[in-house]
Structure formats: structure tokens, C-alpha cells
């Protein structure tokens, strides 16, 4: 099948094409048709033309710098010898013939310069026969040489004039030389005139041209076939007509060769050169264009006349499915198959175009929450997924002798996570194998009392490669049927890389145990009574040991020494019961106390509890879960920033990261409460953290303690908590500093 590239203006044929393929952009419009640039390709390397051309250029340069003529002639002889046999063959590429002409011209000039007129004349003759159009003047020949050249030309060349050219964009070749314009100079004698154009019957005939004369010839080709032209983006697409391969789109089109309308619509980049199909029969045909990874382009062609048909550039659509993420948080970062991607968003909807196949999607919302799934997407399939970010619990590994226990644990974790509705479990066991190997984590190291593991480095790696919020490694006993084990848990940075080891019994109800573990929801606020009940065996009921000035107890009229006989109708005999009641009450709840005053009077008092901030007890729960709780509280904005940061600092300090704690504490500005939990606790904790950093910070620690000690009545942990000032004074004394 002939496939050619046109270099003449195309005849525009506007015929209707019924486009059947859905989504097809193929329409034929006048402005889409454009001219093409002629291109002649030659296998330069095979002929050595490029090398020979370079040698001639080098020779020209050497001549300009004084190369000896004799030496130049030898070089030119070699070039002529290389080209000689081929130069007379009209089928040879034009470059070879043009180069031979150039070589002969230069050699003729040199012969003339050294006085070898005969040699010069011989080369002039051959030169004219090889390239009748060449003009020797560009080589600055001597006047006599040029005169001889002109004379020789007069006797050896004529011109061929072509008239009535139809169609205008046909390709005309005379003795192998392309004809540009309607006149060409040729060697006198019989010349071969060829004319061709897709869709037309090719013409070839010999014409006699006489020297110094002009010969005229009409050229009118006969239309014998329709022509279809098309280009694709990307190239290398296979083109089928009625199921038969008719070619493939090659090369790259210059922007100018593309229809202006198409480039405006699709851009000019990436289109192939035009593929010309000229042996298509009249009638209705099925056109299909295929390329791997792209959806096939199909359309129906109605070829009704012997005309040129051109499809607008065909933009092949890649095969893809669509994942639509619903309820996507504003701060979500989405990873597709592990790679962070920019996502096309519209409100809370996110859209991802993906290749058909299996994909993993991870969504990270803020610093703490994740959501992830794995799914298969087919071409043109749209899958909607509702994003429900939860705290991510990433299971990295399970060690132990009981293989079944590993699966059961995974099930239990999944069930527990589902029950809490606060977590999402991401099972990364396969991906974590090499990572844990690198960290030196195996059964033996994990069973050691103090595993020699660089947890900080491990945390850094998992944060980077398998991100989550809490990382989990399960460790079972040696037994084939494990009965108990441990969950080793730690949190993502900037949390402490110091794992908690939580024992877990497998022979009772591990799912319930894990659920209870994960479902803890500590609050950062608690009721505040301003009452310190104490036990005394001098009386049958708890006695008020102290009242916080300005607190709810004082507001209710309670005083130290009052006996608390009953709370909400329940008799009291222990302060612990009273404190438990106060701790579990709702903030702002009113509890009714029966009081007996020191003078023996009994009375009923309504104690309206206040509400105050509180600190987590880092020893009461795995640190990682405390971090998770803080993250949840922060997300819900259920506590002021200072309180969350304070708790984080306490956790860091507990996890032996005093520098991290200092960083946080330095920034905290809490209420400067004289009675209750506030800035004094921050100062005090800062002092402890600074001391833990090193001896060089003793002075700074003392300064912090001094500030804490200066806030009389301030509490630690919560408004009813331990007093700060006595501790701060003790710390100052321990540092050898004077106390305020």
C-alpha cells in the first residue's frame, strides 16, 4: 500500500463523514486542511553521503586556509571516485548527485587555477550532465572558466515547461529531480518525466528536450481512487479499514502541518504525520485505530466519490477508569499506589483517573487520620468511594509460634476497630517484612526485656514508607497454641518512638480486650469541686480537709471541717466514694450533699460542679493511644490548644523526649490561674523537662520552677489536682536554688 507524504497544497474535499464512534472528535472542516512540507528521506548512512559531504566541507575549509592545490585535487579525486559510479544513476538519491556536482565544480575550479584547462573542461561537462541546474558562480571561478562553463551549458541543456497542471499538488519529477515551479532545466536529450499524486493514475513518459530550447508539456492526471488522510495523537497507532491493517501513523507533525482548528482544540503537540491511504474503495467502510493503553477509535466512513477525505486529527483517549472520592476532607492528601497525587476536586468530591487494573488508595486527613482501600477498576468504570478517615492503626507484623493466632488477631483487630468506629486498620504485614528485617526485629529481639531496636529510626522509616498513626506489632508466646501475647504499639512522629507493650490474653476474649483498649476516650475536661475530702477515723464520714478559694465548694458554702454525710442520697463512709462521684459526674452537674458542720448541725447543700481542664495520666494507658486521643480531641476542637500541647509535652517527657517537651512547653500560654490548673503547671513541667535535657539547663529549669512556685494555689493535672507550688519549691531546693 503506498503511503506518501505530500509536499504540495492539498485539494480540499469537503464531504460528510458520519461519525459513529462515541466520543469521536472526527469532523472534516475546511480550515482543518493544511499544506504539507515536502520531505525526501535518504539513507545517508548507507551511502556514506553524510560522510562524503563532511569531507567536502572540511576540504573547502582547508582550501580557505591555504591548502595546497595538489593535495586538494587528490582529496577531490577520492570523493569523485566514491561518488562516480553512482552519480550517473538517476535513481540515486538526489543528495549524492548534488554532492558529486559540487565536488566536480570545486575540482574544475582548482584545475583551472593550476592551469589544467582540459581537466577543468572535462569536469564542467560532467558537472552539467550531473546537475543541469547548478550555477558555478558561487565558487568564484575565473572569468575564463565561467565563460567556458556558460558556453558548455548552452550546448548541453534545455528547459522543460509544464503547462495545465492538474491536479496542482501532484508530484513532478524530471530525471529524478523534483520539479519546483513549472520550469526545469534539464540535460538536452531524452528526459524522463514522472507525475504522481495519491488518488490519481501515475504518469511517466520520455520527452525529447533540445539544447538551448524550451520544450512545453501539458500535465493532467486521471483520478482513479479516493484518498483518506489522517493523523493521530499519539503516533504509532495501527489503522484498520474494514478490519485490514492499512498502515500506522508515524513521525511527528510540525504544528504548521496541523489544521488550525485542531491545534486550537487539542494543542499541536504529539500528533503524528499524516497517514495517506489511497487504495480505499468507494463505499462505506469501518475505520478503526488502535494503540495499546488507549481506547480504540472507531468510525464509519462514507467514501462516495473520487475525492480526498481528511479526518480531523484523531486524539486517542487513554484507557482509564475513574475513582470518585466522596466526603473528601479539605486537608486530605491522597496517595495512589503509594505515590502522592494531586487530585481534581469539586467541593468534597475528588476525582482520580486511573489505568484499568488494581489500585490502592490511601487518604491521609491532617496529621492523624487515614482511610484506605484496594480496588479493581475497569476501563470506563467509575467507582465511588466514601472516604471515612479514622485513626490509622497499621499492623506491621505478627511474631510467634502460633500461625493461626496471627490470623485470629488480625480478625480481632478488624472487629475491634469496627466496633470502636474510631480507627481504621491497615494491614501492612507484607510490605513491612523487609523493613522490620532491616530494623533487626524478629521473635528473639522482641521477646527480650529491652529489645535492642532503634525505634526512632524504625519510626522514621514507617512514617515514610507505610504511614499510619499508631504502629502495631503483635508478639505471641512460643507455644504452638498461643494463649497470651503482647501488642507492641508506638505512635507516629512527632510522638515518642518508645513502644508500649500491652499484654493480651488470647484464651479469653481478645477482641473485647482489644476493643476496650482502643475504645478509650479520655477527656481533657473533668468536673471541678474545689473540695478536698479526706478520710479520718475520728468521724464516720469523710471530712472536708480543704476548700479551694473561689471554687464551687466555697460557692456552695462548704468549709473545711464539714463532714460529708451523704451525696445524692447515698451515705458516705469513704472519701474515695465522694471523689469517684465527683470524677464521674457531669460538668456543671449539681450534686446534693448532706453536711454536718463542726457544731453538729446537719444541712443539705447543693454543690454545682464546675468544669476544668485536665491532663492525661501517661502511665494509665499506652502512650500511643493517649496520642491518638489527643489527636481526636484536637480534631474535634474539644480542648484549647494549650491543653493539648501540654498533654503532648507530658507524654513526650514521659517517653524520655525532654527536648520535644521543652519545645512544646515554651510555646504554651495557659491561663495564669492562682487556683487551679494553668500556667504554673506548664512552668513546672517545663522545669522538669529542662532538667531532664541536661545539667546545662539547670538555671533555666530553676527559673521555670521559680515562676511555678510564685503562683500560689496552682494545681497540677486538674483544678482539684496536686499543688504545684510546694513541688516547685522542692525542686528549687534540689537544684540548690533559693525558694521564693
Amino acid at each position, binding site marked *: 500500500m503506498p503511503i506518501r507524504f505530500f509536499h504540495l497544497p492539498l485539494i480540499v474535499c469537503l464531504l460528510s463523514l458520519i461519525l459513529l464512534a462515541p466520543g469521536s472528535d472526527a469532523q472534516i472542516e475546511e480550515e482543518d486542511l493544511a499544506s504539507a512540507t515536502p520531505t525526501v528521506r535518504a539513507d545517508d548512512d548507507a551511502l556514506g553521503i553524510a560522510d562524503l559531504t563532511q569531507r567536502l566541507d572540511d576540504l573547502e575549509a582547508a582550501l580557505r586556509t591555504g591548502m595546497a592545490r595538489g593535495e586538494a585535487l587528490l582529496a577531490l579525486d577520492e570523493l569523485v571516485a566514491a561518488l562516480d559510479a553512482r552519480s550517473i544513476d538517476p535513481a540515486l538519491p538526489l543528495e549524492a548527485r548534488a554532492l558529486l556536482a559540487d565536488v566536480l565544480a570545486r575540482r574544475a575550479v582548482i584545475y583551472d587555477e593550476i592551469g589544467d584547462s582540459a581537466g577543468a573542461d572535462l569536469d564542467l561537462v560532467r558537472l552539467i550532465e550531473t546537475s543541469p541546474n547548478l550555477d558555478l558562480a558561487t565558487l568564484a571561478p575565473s572569468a575564463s572558466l565561467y565563460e567556458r562553463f556558460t558556453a558548455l551549458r548552452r550546448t548541453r541543456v534545455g528547459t522543460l515547461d509544464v503547462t495545465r497542471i492538474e491536479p496542482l499538488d501532484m508530484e513532478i519529477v524530471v530525471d529524478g529531480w523534483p520539479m519546483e515551479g513549472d520550469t526545469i532545466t534539464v540535460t538536452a536529450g531524452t528526459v524522463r518525466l514522472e507525475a504522481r499524486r495519491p488518488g490519481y493514475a501515475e504518469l511517466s513518459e520520455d520527452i525529447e528536450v533540445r539544447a538551448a530550447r524550451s520544450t512545453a508539456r501539458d500535465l493532467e492526471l486521471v483520478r482513479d481512487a479516493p484518498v483518506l488522510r489522517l493523523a493521530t495523537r499519539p503516533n504509532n497507532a495501527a489503522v484498520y479499514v474494514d478490519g485490514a491493517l492499512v498502515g500506522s501513523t508515524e513521525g511527528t507533525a510540525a504544528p504548521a502541518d496541523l489544521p488550525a482548528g485542531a491545534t486550537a482544540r487539542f494543542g499541536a503537540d504529539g500528533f503524528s504525520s499524516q497517514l495517506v491511504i489511497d487504495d480505499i474503495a468507494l463505499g462505506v467502510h469501518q475505520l478503526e485505530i488502535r494503540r495499546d493503553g488507549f481506547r480504540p477509535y472507531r468510525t464509519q466512513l462514507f467514501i462516495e466519490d473520487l475525492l480526498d477525505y481528511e479526518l480531523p486529527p484523531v486524539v486517542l483517549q487513554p484507557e482509564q477508569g475513574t475513582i470518585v472520592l466522596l466526603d473528601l476532607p479539605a486537608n486530605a492528601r491522597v496517595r495512589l499506589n503509594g505515590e502522592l497525587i494531586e487530585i481534581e476536586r469539586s467541593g468534597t468530591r475528588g476525582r482520580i483517573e486511573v489505568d484499568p487494573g488494581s489500585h490502592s488508595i490511601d487518604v491521609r486527613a491532617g496529621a492523624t487520620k487515614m482511610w484506605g482501600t484496594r480496588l479493581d477498576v475497569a476501563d470506563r468504570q467509575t467507582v465511588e468511594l466514601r472516604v471515612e478517615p479514622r485513626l490509622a492503626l497499621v499492623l506491621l507484623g505478627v511474631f510467634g509460634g502460633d500461625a493461626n493466632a496471627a490470623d485470629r488477631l488480625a480478625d480481632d483487630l478488624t472487629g475491634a476497630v469496627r466496633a470502636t468506629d474510631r480507627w481504621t486498620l491497615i494491614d501492612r504485614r507484607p510490605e513491612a517484612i523487609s523493613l522490620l528485617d532491616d530494623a533487626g526485629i524478629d521473635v528473639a529481639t522482641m521477646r527480650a526485656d529491652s529489645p535492642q531496636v532503634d525505634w526512632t529510626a524504625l519510626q522514621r522509616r514507617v512514617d515514610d514508607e507505610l504511614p499510619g498513626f499508631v504502629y502495631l506489632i503483635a508478639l505471641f508466646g512460643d507455644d504452638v497454641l498461643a494463649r497470651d501475647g503482647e501488642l507492641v504499639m508506638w505512635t507516629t512522629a512527632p510522638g515518642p518512638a518508645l513502644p508500649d507493650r500491652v499484654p493480651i490474653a488470647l484464651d479469653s476474649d481478645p477482641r473485647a480486650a482489644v476493643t476496650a483498649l482502643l475504645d478509650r476516650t479520655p477527656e481533657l475536661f473533668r468536673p471541678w469541686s474545689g473540695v478536698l475530702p479526706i478520710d479520718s477515723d*475520728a468521724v464516720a464520714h469523710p471530712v472536708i480537709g480543704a476548700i479551694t478559694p473561689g471554687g464551687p465548694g466555697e460557692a456552695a458554702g462548704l468549709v473545711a471541717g464539714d463532714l460529708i454525710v451523704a451525696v445524692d442520697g447515698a451515705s458516705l463512709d469513704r472519701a474515695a466514694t465522694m471523689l469517684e462521684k465527683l470524677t464521674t459526674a457531669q460538668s456543671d452537674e449539681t450534686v446534693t450533699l448532706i453536711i454536718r458542720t463542726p457544731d453538729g448541725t446537719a444541712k443539705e447543700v447543693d454543690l454545682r460542679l464546675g468544669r476544668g481542664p485536665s491532663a492525661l495520666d501517661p502511665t494509665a494507658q499506652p502512650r500511643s493511644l493517649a496520642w491518638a486521643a489527643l489527636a481526636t480531641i484536637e480534631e474535634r476542637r474539644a480542648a484549647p490548644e494549650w491543653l493539648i500541647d501540654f498533654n503532648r509535652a507530658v507524654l513526650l517527657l514521659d517517653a524520655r523526649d525532654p527536648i520535644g517537651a521543652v519545645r512544646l512547653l515554651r510555646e504554651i500560654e495557659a491561663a495564669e490561674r492562682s487556683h487551679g490548673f494553668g500556667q504554673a503547671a506548664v512552668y513546672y513541667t517545663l522545669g522538669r523537662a529542662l532538667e531532664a535535657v541536661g545539667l546545662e539547663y539547670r538555671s533555666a529549669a530553676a527559673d521555670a520552677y521559680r515562676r511555678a512556685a510564685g503562683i500560689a494555689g496552682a494545681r497540677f493535672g486538674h483544678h482539684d489536682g496536686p499543688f504545684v507550688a510546694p513541688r516547685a519549691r522542692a525542686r528549687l531546693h534540689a537544684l540548690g536554688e533559693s525558694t521564693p
Partner: protein
Amino acid sequence: MIRVAVVVCLATVLSFPARGSEAERLFAEATRLDNASDLAAALDAYRLLIDRFAATPEAAEALARSAELQWARDDSSAAERLIETLRSRHPTSAATARGELLAGTMAMDRAGSLADLAAARTILLRVPLGWDRGAFPDLQARARARVAAAQIAFLLGDLDTAIAEALLVAEDEPRGDYSAEAELLWARASLAANAELAPILEVLQRNVIENEGEAIGREAKAWLSLLHRRRIGPSVGRPWIDSARPFAATTMRLEEATGVAADGDSIVVTDGSLPLIAILGTDESVRVRTAITTPRRPWWDVDRNAAAVGDDVLVRPFGGRRIGLTSPRGRDDALSDIEAATDDLFGGWWAIARRYDDVLLRYNTVTQPPREVRLQDTRDLQDVARDDRGRLYALDRDSQSVHRLDADGRGDEIVARGDWKRAAALAIDRLGYLWVLDSGTRRVEMWDASGRLLMRLGPNLPGGIELRDPVDIAVDGAGRVYLADEDLTHLVVLD
């Protein structure tokens, strides 16, 4: 002998993983023998390990454990040699910290003076100085050494230091059984330093809850009760003594009570007619009783054993030995007519005898003649008592004064001067209040530590009890006051 609560891991069940090396296997075997209480065999195994694998961590552990065992066998010389070996071979091992703790504990045990205690404290402080939290975050020996050092500071009267060190243990060390002990010490020292009450109450009450059912929890509750009785109640108008009632009237009928003493939650009473000595609970139950010859005043010694004075002996009737005291004249002259006695912090005794009633007799050891400690203007000493910090209090009938000495028997100062007809007995409660029994007026008086009379009560007490011939007075840890009266068939408790 000081028996502050320094526990040296004797009961620790050691467990090391069997990791395969010969030293490890040997250590595992020694530990097994140790845990099985086959101490001689365990010591042999430890010694073999120390000799054959001297440079291993197991050898360091073996040295430390051997030293602890030797000390438990009262061979302190052997223990010291092992500790010295530890120091030289394993200067930075955690086991050596245990060795230093043991060295400090032994120094406390041997202390004969406050200066000796200060020296023991210096040894103990090597542990926190040499094994800091950064490198040894979970070192129990450091926490224990700090608690012991804080206790010594408390005894030395350096209250601020005691408070600071107790706090460091409570807050900085990993939680352990010493944590509550440290907090309690913090509270005691803070009270002694007259610190603000509310923070102390908070700490004590928290310990009551966190250690419910344990001795430390009961101790904390006793302190709260004491503070309620002495500070909180009176501050809002509650009388110092609200009631008086017979104590153990139905469980312990007395014929001729001669003395009473009280500890945190136990009362010991002596009866010269029955004759006997008995220990009662605060719930009035009789815990134990035994016959004793001519019993006089009892007391609780520093090891919390009940002790009593007989005519010429000191008796630890429940598991102790009878101690005959020599007179100042020499070994051949036994002391008779012992009126009152108490032990001191250093394993010695203080006694008052009828023949030498103008001086206090101090016995460093009971086999040597005592040192006579003469107080200013005392001619008829009647009673001697010791407070929590080891300070001695002596009641002189003639000068009608109470004298206080430091634990070394120095620094005589008069802390109360009364108008007593026949002062008979003295008691000190844990907050430092003085209780004086005047048998002449059959009254009880309460004085504060600065010599101010706060209360006088008797002979008719609230509740209709009349004192007839009161002979002794005691205060328990919770602040209840007990009176022994020769003419009453029961003790009287004032509350």
C-alpha cells in the same frame, strides 16, 4: 539501729533469660538456688561465677546478690568485700548501684550518731549521682537509695532536703513500692516544716485511695486522722478532745494498769497485778498477751516491737529477749528500779532509774555501762520518750519541765514548763504535740512544740469518766490519747 524502710531486694525473684553462654547458665542455676532459699549453695554458685567469669555482666549481678545475701546473714565484712570488688571490677554496672545501696544501708545500720547517719547518706547519694536517669531510667536501686537518703535528711532535721529528695523519687523515678513511701515521707517532712496543709492532705488522701488495704494506705489514713484531730477540727472550733471513753473494757479487764504505749494502730498495755503485757488493736481487740514479771511502762521501739520496762530489765515480750541493764557503776551492778526507757535511732537505749533519777542513762550497748546525760536542773526525772525524728523528751517532776535533746543526746532545751503537782508521764504525738500526765492533779495537758499550753483536761473527763490514779499516757498514730489508770479496770481513750 535504724530500720528505715530500705529493702535491699532480698525477696526479689531474679529471672534472667537462659541465653546460652556458660556464665548465663551458671547465673541461672545460682538464681534458681537463691529463689529456692538454698542460700549456701546459691552463694557457692555465685562465687564460682564471680571467679570464672569475672568480667561478665552476670558476675556483677552475682557480686551484688552475694553481698546482699552476706548482709542478710549478718556478715557485713564479707558484704563489704564483695561491694569493693564490684566497685573495682564493674564501676558502671547497674549491679554496682545495688552494691552502693547496700553499702549505704549497712552504714545506716551501723550508725551510732547523727554524724554517722550523715556519712551513710553520703554513701547512698553515690547511687543517684553515679547512675543517672538518662542512662539507667529504670534503676530501682537509685529510687531506694534516694528514699533512704531522704529519710536520713529528715532525721537530721534537714527538712527541705528531705522534701526535695522524696519528691524526686515520687515524680522522677518509675513507679514502685517506694513511690508511696516517698510521698508519705514528703508529707511528714512537709508537716515537720510547717508547710501549707492542703497539699499535704491531697498527697495523703491520694495514697489512702491508691494503697487501700495496704500498710502504707493505713499509715496515710492515720496521718489524715491525726491532722483532722489536731489541725482541721480545732481550726473550726472542734475541741482538742471531744470525748473520753473506756477502751477495751470488755476485752481487756485490768487490775492495776502500769503503763500504756501506742503505735500507728496498736496499743500496748501493762498490768502489774495480773501481771501481763498485751497488745490491743484500735478496734479494742486483744491481739496478743503474755505474762511478764513486774511490768512497768511499755513503748514501741524503732523496729515497731512492743517493749516494756520491768524492775531491772527491758523486755521485748513478743519475740525479743530480756535485756538486763548495768548501772553506771559497772558491769557487776545491775540496774534496778527502772522507771522508764526508750530505744534510740542507733540501736541503743535511754533509761531512767530510781537510783539515778537526776540523769538520763544512755546505753550504746546493753553490755556496757551507760553514759550519764545530765540535763539542766533536773532532779526527779519521771519519763522519757522519743519522737519520729529520734529526738528525746524527758519529763522532770522536780523542775516541772519537759526537756528535748537531739538524737545524739545533745542540745538540751526546755520545751514545756508546767505547773504540775506530780508529773508522771509524757507522750509525743507525730505532730510534735506534748502530752503530760499530772497524776497529782489527775489531769492531762497538751502543749505545742513551742511550749504553749493548749489544753488541760481532768480529773473528770467528757463522758462521765473520772481519773483516779493515772500512771501513763500514750498517743497513737491517728492522734487518739490513751491513759492508764491504776484504779480503773480499763484504759481510757481521749478523742
